[in-house]
């Protein structure tokens, strides 16, 4: 498969010099600089192949890189049809294949929150952008798709939360891509300054049966004693291909609540890396994934402990049904000197019928001694005993199964601090149980 990808020019999806000049056209300052650096790195890095441990279970050749074409840099458009989600947030960003629009619901009541397209941010927050774009959060630089995103992003936003401000309703970014072989490359940078509190929600949708690809990258910076919640609800249609490489860095006394819900897409390959970088930093990473029909969802997480007295707790729960397949790879890495660390990683899987497959690869890489790191992984079907109990109370088999699967996921769904979103996710899960 790889031979198709690494054809002579070394580029696919038309991502060559010309595309680069097009992407960087009219851009200046740090954005242009980063694009140029990333383009060099991107060119020098080989495409991952099945021989790379991380891609062994998801053939890069399955991504139709040749069939999609990168959308030109998206510009501003009038706000498209409103969604029932919109009123629940302070600021709403809508992204379609035509462009993006930003709606501000605040009426001047919430201050401290700035939401800007990257090019705008360059003018107003140039110094901060220089520190946060391809900044220290990106723990692994030799990644083809992180570099691809930095070089070729076609829509990007910067969210800044000022020191000691609390933003209750936060920001919603919703992507509604109609498909048509579009390649969307979104970039997001979030910077929560010291003592601030904020919430960012992302929502991805595309119609079923429409081919498209999304190669996203996010960088999140949580400064001293700041708290950031990040919810990503992925409801791509069944023709969508997704690659996402996301990075977060949590400073002293800071906390991140990072919830990733992967429900849609045909093939999805995600990397979520979080560094608890300073003492007393805390990371909660949660994930829900449900692959049915022929879906393939592959996710890798990294909990990096670089300082003493840092904490992380990860819980990823998934289900596979029909011919669905899921892969979970997780690593807890504790470097030299990362003592008094407490890290936990748990992956639980439901394999709902024959023909479905789940792989679990939890991992520990420990270079320090005075710490406590552990992981767990389970696989199995619904408990026959529990099913029997529910059915003996008059529930049908389907109802009983539905209830148990929902109960299994409730632990993750409950982490979303928004009842409306919770209901949306429950409805998604319900639909997939069938």
């Amino acid at each position, binding site marked *: 498969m790889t031979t198709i990808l690494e054809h002579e020019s070394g580029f696919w999806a038309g991502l060559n010099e010309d595309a680069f000049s097009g992407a960087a056209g009219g851009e200046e300052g740090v954005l242009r600089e980063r694009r140029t650096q990333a383009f060099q790195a991107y060119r020098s890095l080989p495409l991952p192949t099945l021989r790379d441990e991380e891609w062994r279970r998801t053939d890069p050749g399955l991504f139709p890189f040749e069939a999609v074409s990168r959308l030109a840099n998206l510009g501003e458009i009038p706000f498209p049809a409103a969604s029932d989600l919109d009123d629940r947030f302070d600021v709403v960003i809508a992204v379609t294949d035509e462009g993006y629009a930003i709606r501000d619901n605040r009426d001047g009541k919430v201050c401290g929150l700035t939401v800007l397209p990257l090019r705008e941010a360059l003018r107003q927050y140039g110094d901060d952008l220089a520190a946060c774009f391809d900044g220290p959060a990106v723990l692994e630089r030799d990644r083809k798709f992180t570099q691809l995103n930095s070089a070729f992003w076609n829509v990007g936003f910067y969210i800044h939360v000022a020191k000691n401000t609390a933003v209750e309703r936060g920001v919603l970014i919703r992507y509604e891509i109609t498909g048509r072989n579009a390649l969307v490359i979104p970039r997001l940078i979030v910077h929560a300054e010291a003592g601030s509190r904020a919430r960012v929600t992302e929502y991805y949708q595309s119609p079923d049966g429409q081919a498209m690809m999304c190669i996203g990258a996010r960088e999140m910076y949580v400064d001293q004693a700041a708290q950031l919640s990040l919810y990503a609800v992925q409801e791509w249609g069944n023709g969508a291909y997704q690659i996402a490489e996301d990075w977060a860095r949590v400073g002293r006394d800071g906390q991140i609540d990072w919830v990733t819900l992967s429900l849609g897409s045909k093939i999805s390959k995600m990397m979520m890396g979080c560094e608890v970088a300073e003492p007393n930093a805390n990371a909660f990473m949660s994930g829900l994934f449900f692959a049915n029909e022929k879906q393939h969802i592959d996710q890798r997480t990294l909990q990096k402990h670089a300082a003493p007295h840092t904490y992380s707790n990860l819980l990823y729960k998934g289900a596979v049904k029909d011919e669905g397949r899921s892969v979970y790879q997780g690593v807890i890495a504790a470097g030299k000197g990362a003592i008094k660390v407490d890290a936990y990683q748990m992956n639980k899987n439901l394999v709902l019928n*024959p023909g479905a497959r789940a*792989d*679990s*690869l939890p991992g520990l890489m420990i270079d320090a*001694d005075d710490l406590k790191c552990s992981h767990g992984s389970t696989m*199995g079907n619904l408990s026959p005993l529990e099913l029997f109990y529910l059915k003996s109370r008059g529930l049908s088999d389907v109802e009983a199964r539905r209830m148990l699967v929902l109960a299994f996921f409730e632990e993750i769904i409950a982490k979303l601090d928004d009842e409306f979103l919770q209901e949306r996710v429950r409805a998604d899960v319900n639909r997939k149980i069938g």
Partner: protein
Amino acid sequence: MPTLETNSTLVRDEYKYGFSTDVPTESFEKGLNEEVIRAISAKKNEPEWMTEWRLKAFRRWLNMKEPQWADVSYPPIDYQDICYFSAPKLENNPEVDEELKRTFERLGVPMHERDRLAGVAVDAVFDSVSVGTTHKEMLAEKGIIFCSISEAIQEHPELVKKYLGTVVPQGDNFFAALNSAVFTDGSFCYIPKGVRCPVELSTYFRINAVDTGQFERTLIVCEDDAYVSYIEGCTAPSRDRNQLHAAVVELIALEGAEIKYSTVQNWYAGDEEGRGGIYNFVTKRGHCRGRKSKISWTQVEVGSAITWKYPSVVLEGDDSVGEFYSVAFTNRKMQADTGTKMVHVGRNTKSTIVSKGISAGRSRNSYRGLVQILPGADNARNHTQCDSMLIGDTCTANTYPVIECENSTAITEHEATTSKISEEQMFYITSRGIDEESATSLIVNGFCKEVFKELPMEFSVEAVKLLELKLEHSVG
């Protein structure tokens, strides 16, 4: 294996097995090519099919690459700089015979039939050849065959032909292919239908010569409803050059059969600076072919500069059971990348993995495991527990498990922890007047207890002592 008395004297020094024996030996020139393989085969007076089998493996090996994925690092091995055959000159030389006997006595291996008290039958392998097997007559009465693999090729070619290479094929991996081409000795055990082997069978491997590689090949076959407990021990002299040990062990359990395979691996591990020591690159695999068969691996790994070893079980027969109990201890600059594979093929198959890693000094200790539930493995069940203990802040402990589940009726559980010796436990024990070193030893023994209790009794005692001894210079 060794009795309690012989051992207590042996384990007093840090690596008491580090001596070498001065006997006249016959060694091949260094290097590896088809001629060398033909020569090994001729030396052992092997039939044509065996020579061809070796050559086939060699040709495959030539096209294979040394695996790089393990979490170990070592300078490239020059396979042409190894001597592939070395044997003490035995013929009509009673003095040499006595010298070898003394060597094994010194190692605590009872080579005289009179040592029946030990309750084990021993096959002793010195460099490339088996130098003696005890209790053969008694075993033969029951129809049990226990001899060196070379002898089996001569005496029982039909059995060897039937089973050799059926669990670990010639081209399985780089080291297995190398072993298939140049293997020199090892044990062959065959337990016929319905027989429960009355004594423990044991092989003691000793590397003596310099610059020699040891390529052991062990094949154990248990027919329907048979049972055997097999023990393996390994030591080598302290030398400042690395030596290669690439073994292949194949276990086959037919319907209702049970094989229990225990190892205490104490190859020379190198000195403080990591000079010398054995590279222990081993392929061990069991195949539960029949219904209700069981294969159990228990290993205590305390030696070797580098260990690369994944005793595995393919659970093909319905209701078959696979077990893996392991203690891997590393200190100084030792590197261990070890674990297991449990491949569930048949229905109602069960596997248990208990792995305990202890790292000290500047060592690296990794657990790497695979639990694979194939689509037909209805009601398969796996429970895995791997715990790592760190002693000191310059060592590394990694855990890389893989769980693949393709059956919706299977249940797997995996749990792993990494931590240092609990300060509370230390405080409690030392507050009772016990010194720090003994306290550490007690806690570590408790940590490994689940594995030690799976070992045959004498062996278990030896393992505890061995670990205590290895810990002596790692604490404080």
